[in-house]
């Protein structure tokens, strides 16, 4: 049994070896090579060319070959069958079938009768030739100044060969063989108008090839039918809107005139308004005072006030204290010395007080602040500075307690400037022997000067 089994095993082994792939025909190498060159052929496949059917087309490279008795057969990489025979149509051999495995290599042999003359290994998925694109259209977009090129391909609905690279070629019809090429993977292309000649006729066409990095590879498809279109005439100068042109020119000139005027009138008119110069307050005051009265001596020179009694004011005391003090300060007959003690020209209207007190309230009441607050009657009086000219006593305005009165105030009963109130202002009883302000009457009011009084008297 062992010997029998061994014998059978050897027989089967030899059978397998013999029925395996041949490749040891060393003697026929040259003949095979010559035959391969003579019967050289090329094939391409088209998948799902007719719904789910694929096609395989082969032709001999030598057009002069006598292919009368020659047949082509494909074996391997087929579904459910081993081999298929080609159908011959004139000089072209083709197969239409669904039985391509699409995996692995097939062998296509040239047969003369039952004898295979030459064979070639081919992979169906590596010799794919796509179908030609179709329905090219070119649409001009006036607003965008470009041309939108669109086309269609049947591979968009296929299962296998879906990814294609498209080659769009266009040229001006007058110029021969000057094709411009654009590669794209989509079915839409935009051509800029500025890259094309104006008012010219153009021809455009498209072809496809399987994407190189895809599983399927192959050759370029046939060109699509050409499409012809004409580029518009660009009237760029003439198409300019005249209204727009007029407006732009007038605007330019207006701006130019404004710039010139600004430069010319800058120093005289514009700059004083934009950046007015601040006047010197002393000079302004002198100007204000100079204008209304030529014979009015106004000066801030301290030497002009040598004949005036000027007393320094120290502080303010409480009311009770000062009320008592005032009672003592204002006896019926004021003395000269007491008057000298009055600093700032404060006097009691009833007599010459020993010590005159000015209350802040009264001071405030009669102060220019009340004038600013709108108390008109209180603002009617204005203090006249010392010295006064004799002429002003007679012909000039009336003076009341050293105050220059407006004409309207002479008929009014003028209250004392500083009646006795709380919050008393103490005076510095210095400079004895110095005359009291002669401009002040027997009342304890104190004269004061305000800029507003000067301004009012204008």
């Amino acid at each position, binding site marked *: *049994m062992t010997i029998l089994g061994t014998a059978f095993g050897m027989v089967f082994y030899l059978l397998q070896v013999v029925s395996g792939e041949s490749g040891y025909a060393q003697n026929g190498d040259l003949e095979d090579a010559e035959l391969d060159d003579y019967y050289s052929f090329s094939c391409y496949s088209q998948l799902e060319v007719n719904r789910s059917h694929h096609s395989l087309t082969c032709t001999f490279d030598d057009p002069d070959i006598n292919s009368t008795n020659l047949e082509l057969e494909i074996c391997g*990489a*087929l*579904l*459910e*069958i*081993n081999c298929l025979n080609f159908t011959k149509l004139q000089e072209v051999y083709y197969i239409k079938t669904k039985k391509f*495995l*699409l*995996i*692995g290599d097939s062998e296509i042999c040239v047969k003369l009768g039952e004898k295979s003359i030459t064979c070639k290994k081919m992979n169906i*998925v590596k010799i794919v030739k796509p179908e030609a694109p179709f329905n090219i259209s070119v649409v001009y977009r006036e607003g965008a100044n470009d041309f939108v090129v669109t086309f269609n391909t049947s591979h968009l609905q296929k*299962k*296998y060969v879906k990814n294609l690279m498209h080659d769009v070629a266009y040229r001006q019809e007058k110029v021969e063989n000057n094709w411009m090429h654009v590669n794209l993977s989509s079915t839409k292309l935009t051509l800029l108008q500025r890259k094309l000649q104006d008012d010219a006729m153009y021809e455009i066409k498209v072809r496809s090839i399987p994407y190189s990095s*895809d*599983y*399927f590879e192959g050759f370029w498809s046939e060109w699509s039918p050409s499409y012809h279109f004409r580029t518009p005439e660009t009237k760029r100068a003439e198409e300019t809107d005249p209204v727009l042109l007029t407006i732009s020119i007038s605007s330019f000139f207006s701006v130019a005139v404004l710039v010139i005027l600004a430069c010319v009138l800058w120093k005289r008119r514009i700059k004083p308004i934009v950046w007015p110069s601040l006047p010197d307050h002393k000079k302004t005051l002198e100007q204000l005072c100079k204008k209304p009265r030529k014979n009015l001596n106004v000066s801030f020179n301290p030497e002009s006030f040598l004949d005036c009694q000027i007393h320094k004011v120290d502080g303010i005391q409480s009311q009770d204290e000062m009320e008592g003090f005032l009672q003592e300060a204002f006896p019926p007959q004021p003395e000269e010395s007491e008057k000298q003690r009055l600093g700032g020209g404060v006097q009691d209207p009833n007599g010459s007080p020993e010590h005159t007190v000015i209350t802040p309230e009264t001071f405030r009441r009669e102060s220019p602040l009340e004038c600013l607050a709108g108390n008109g009657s209180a603002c009617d009086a204005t203090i006249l500075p010392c010295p006064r000219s004799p002429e002003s006593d007679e012909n000039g305005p009336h003076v009341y307690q050293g105050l220059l009165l407006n004409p309207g105030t002479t008929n009014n009963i003028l209250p004392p400037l500083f009646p006795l109130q709380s919050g008393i202002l103490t005076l510095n009883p210095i400079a004895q022997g110095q005359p009291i302000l002669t401009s002040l009457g027997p009342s304890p009011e104190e004269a004061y000067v305000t800029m507003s009084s000067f301004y009012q008297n204008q």
Partner: protein
Amino acid sequence: TFSDVLLFVLSDFFRKIFILQLAGLVLTYNFTDCDFEKIKQKYQKTIYNDLKEYMNGAKSTQFNSTVSCNNKSDCLAEIERLTFSAPRGCAPLAREAFALRTRATFALQCPGYSRTQTNNTQAAKKTKEREITTKKCLEQVSQLLGLWGRFCRTLWKR
């Protein structure tokens, strides 16, 4: 004698059993050395379309996924088992286009995968009408789609 005859028969019997066991071990292929990227590419470009066409619009989500795999070689082993097995209620799927392409893919991309299996399945058979696609068959194909998807995802993780 009788004992000699009995001994001869039993030895022959056990020998066949031994040979069958060896054949079983040989037929269980180890997919470790396969070119997984090319297998994945062939699946995406050809086998997937066949599986979807077989499902004929039926959604794979309506079936429960009962089979899974852990790694690339394990997934291929499961795919082979499901593709060429014949569960009860469903005729063998080995004659379908996706099965033939699966076997051809394994033969090309897995060194040592049996070529004889490819030849046998591609041999002309007396075709009988394709059996009506049952729900069992759809379920099995749905499982195959899941396994192939799992296989592709394991390659993304690399």
